[in-house]
């Protein structure tokens, strides 16, 4: 009897799952039911037979170790979510090409006024939201006004810091023309490469305070990009399908019929999925896994320099770290090139500032300016009053307090290795570095809170294309969230005030170089390296181009030959 009951229960569980039409069994509220029904209805009217050609068809799966936020540009700012907003489900006014120059996307053209304070975009008139409504200048203005509204809690307000506030900053000239007003500033196009446009007709009535947790982000996204949302199982996968109504002028519908984003948190299993053909792209591979994938026939590793870099940030509010000589010694006492080589081989670059190597302002001539030099590190520490007074190998100040620095970091294999090597190397110059792993939310709380309850922190940072380090290093921002180094330097302040308003790159480059030199003198951080991104790709998936723009930048062009397509 018991066995019969057990078997019946299991069978019922199985059939329940197996008979469900959709993997996402979540009950949806009224908004989602209506919105997705309208999407289905519109898609049914535009699907037809679809374009013909060997490139059209097939399903591709991208596997990543982390879940992404969602398709709500007002709330979700993590790297995976942003790339899906920009390249998959939503649209921006412009995109960057391979040379990182703006090219038309939702906007077919634009012009800047002579005084560089007005930017007018002329939009395409053939872009529709996935529920059939046209995408217009009203959507663009709505996105701008909502992001500017402090009640929204838009995660990247820095994009709009030079814009005139509210209605002053935007004007809908006609349904497909929108004008923005701002104080002249550098890289003014980057905002419109980075902020996806959101649908006004669905969100205009939602109070700004509620937008961040609106179901349009994670339950029923309605976009206007090349792929439409189909379903999502949180923590497991997102499913998108080609948008047949994507404008012909932008290449028409993408080649793939379907695209799935899978979350596979264990990296070894993610590699196993790549090796067995379960996923076509393995995002963010470990270096040793990349070597394994490269050795496998039918797989390749696409690696490219990226905008992120690793650094140890020092809290200069702590007396022992307030002297630039000490911070400089910490950098000179670490063999950054050796650490980088050991972990990433040739696929990384030592950096000396927060300007990543892919950025036009990066100064490669600074590469060898702070070489591994333990002797100079020792001499700087001695000059700063840190001497080994009791012969235990650790330096002390005049009162006998040891030069002991706690370095906090979150659970991450690479960072733990780096911290351990730093500990050993700094011990050689008399510094007792003590790495301590803490949970990520705790780490963020400690470095961004007003108490700044930390001494050193080992973190990775992803720079935007439009660089502005004011919130990290300007004296006026020293109480801000990101000023965890507590830097106060009048020279840096002058650069940080000037750089954002130099609109000509030619004029900006010498200033950027001077700024980088000053950063090296002040040494708020020990910058370590900028590692290439590594992604394993199954060769059946073609035309996969990845660069500093991101892994999904070329997804519209990905295709699979008919003989290589997997059957469901």
């Amino acid at each position: 009897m018991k066995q019969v009951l057990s078997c019946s229960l299991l069978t019922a569980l199985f059939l329940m799952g197996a008979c469900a039409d959709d993997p996402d069994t979540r009950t949806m509220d009224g908004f989602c039911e209506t919105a997705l029904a309208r999407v289905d209805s519109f898609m049914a009217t535009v699907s037809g037979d679809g374009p013909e050609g060997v490139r059209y068809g097939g399903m591709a799966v991208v596997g990543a170790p982390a879940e992404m936020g969602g398709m709500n540009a007002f709330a979700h700012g993590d790297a995976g979510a942003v790339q899906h907003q920009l390249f998959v489900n939503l649209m921006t006014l412009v995109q960057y090409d391979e040379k990182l120059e703006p090219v038309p996307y939702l906007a077919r053209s634009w012009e800047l006024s002579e005084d560089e304070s007005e930017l007018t975009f002329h939009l395409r008139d053939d872009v529709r939201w996935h529920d059939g409504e046209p995408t217009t200048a009203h959507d663009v203005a709505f996105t701008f006004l909502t992001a500017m509204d402090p009640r929204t809690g838009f995660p990247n307000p820095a994009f709009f810091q030079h814009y005139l506030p509210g209605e002053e900053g935007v004007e809908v000239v006609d349904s497909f023309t929108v004008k923005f007003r701002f104080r002249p500033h550098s890289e003014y196009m980057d905002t419109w490469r980075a902020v996806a446009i959101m649908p006004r007709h669905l969100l205009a009535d939602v109070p700004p305070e509620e937008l961040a947790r609106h179901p349009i982000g994670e339950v029923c996204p309605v976009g206007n990009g090349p792929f439409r949302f189909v379903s999502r199982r949180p923590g497991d996968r997102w499913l998108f399908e080609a948008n047949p109504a994507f404008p012909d002028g932008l290449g028409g519908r993408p080649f793939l019929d379907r695209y799935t984003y899978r979350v596979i948190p264990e990296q070894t299993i993610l590699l196993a999925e790549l090796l067995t053909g379960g996923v076509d792209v393995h995002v963010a591979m470990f270096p040793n896994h990349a070597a394994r994938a490269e050795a496998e026939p039918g797989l390749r590793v696409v690696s490219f320099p990226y905008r992120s870099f690793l650094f140890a940030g020092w809290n200069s509010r702590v007396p022992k770290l307030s002297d630039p000589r000490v911070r400089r010694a910490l950098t000179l006492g670490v063999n950054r090139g050796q650490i980088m080589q050991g972990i990433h081989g040739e696929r990384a670059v030592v950096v000396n500032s927060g300007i990543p190597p892919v950025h036009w302002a990066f100064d490669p001539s600074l590469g060898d300016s702070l070489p591994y030099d333990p002797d100079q590190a020792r001499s700087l520490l001695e000059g700063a009053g840190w001497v080994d007074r009791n012969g235990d190998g650790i330096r002390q100040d005049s009162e006998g307090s040891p030069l002991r620095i706690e370095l906090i970091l979150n659970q991450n294999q690479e960072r733990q290795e780096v911290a351990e090597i730093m500990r050993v190397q700094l011990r050689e110059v008399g510094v007792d570095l003590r790495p301590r792993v803490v949970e990520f939310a705790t780490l963020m709380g400690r470095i961004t809170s007003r108490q700044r309850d930390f001494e050193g922190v080992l973190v990775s940072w992803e720079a935007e294309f439009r660089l502005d380090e004011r919130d990290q290093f300007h004296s006026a921002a020293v109480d801000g969230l990101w000023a965890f180094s507590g830097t106060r330097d009048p020279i840096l302040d002058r650069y940080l005030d000037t750089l954002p308003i130099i609109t000509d790159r030619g004029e900006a480059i010498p200033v950027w170089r001077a700024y980088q030199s000053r950063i090296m003198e002040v040494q708020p951080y020990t910058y370590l390296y900028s590692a290439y991104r590594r992604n394993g790709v199954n060769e059946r998936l073609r035309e996969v181009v990845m660069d500093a723009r991101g892994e999904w930048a070329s997804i519209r062009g990905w295709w699979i030959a008919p003989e290589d397509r997997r059957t469901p």
Partner: protein
Amino acid sequence: MLVYAARRVLAAVPLLLGVATIVFVVLALAPGDPASMYLRPGMSPETLDQIRRNMGLDAPLHVQYGRWLLSFLQGDFGQSLASGIPVKDRILEVLPNTLLLAAVAILLAFVAGIFLGVMQAVRQHSPLDSVLSGTSLFFYSMPSFWLAIMMVLVFSVNAGTVWGWPVSLPPSGMVSDGYDLLGPMARVRDRLLHLVLPALTLTLVLTGGIARYVRNSMLEVIRQDYIRTARAKGLPEWQVVWKHALRNALIPVVTLLGVYFPLLLSGTVFIEYVFAWPGMGRLMVDSILLEDYPVVLAGTFLFGGMVVLGNLLADLLYGVVDPRIRRGDG
């Protein structure tokens, strides 16, 4: 019996609320900030404060607790801070996945564990007993995380490509890409194939302990007088062992079922993590890391409820396996 069961469940509600309250306080006192998941470079402290307000985190702790308790008592678990999705929906979409995995693993582990335990007991000190004891101990002491990866290497990565086995099992997930395009039978097959590795790994880890438990229990029982009597009556050995001895040996083993089931719901976390199985364990760990306390509290309440139900189930099963307990004369 129904009244007894209902009374037990109701008596557990204050206990569970107490546990959830303690978890609430611990989470509130822990360092970190749930709003930090939205932190981005360039964000001002004012923006972060606004995000906190939008999440309802600006109110004093006792007000937050009061709000939570009030909704909770009305059956509303609130909204996930991370996603804005109602917690009830969030749990309902992953709970069946964990239940399926745990139920299959428990069933297989008890069937295998009981069989192996009996075999060892009736052949005590034989080479078979030694081999099975060693094997049980090996899997029992194996970290499930490592075992899971080994299973994937053998049955997924190497099975098809290196060794040419006819079936290579999927390394992760619950279903294949394109599952929704499959017919009903193909869906069942696809789900079964995805279930094999996580369920088998969990079964291997559990079986060793159960087999040890059954073996010891059987060894005590088969020395009893009534077993000697059964043999003296001339009953066949299989009947003595599987009918007379096992039934009595199972009474303490039933307790294990009551303990294992709730533990499995939370204890599958490593298996769910390795096999990318979207279940309760992963949801809870992710929510703890994000300090998504509405989800953590609801999950804690659920796990606590499972412990109560598991113990209740064990008590009721005692009655099934031992009529003396059912009659109240035990």
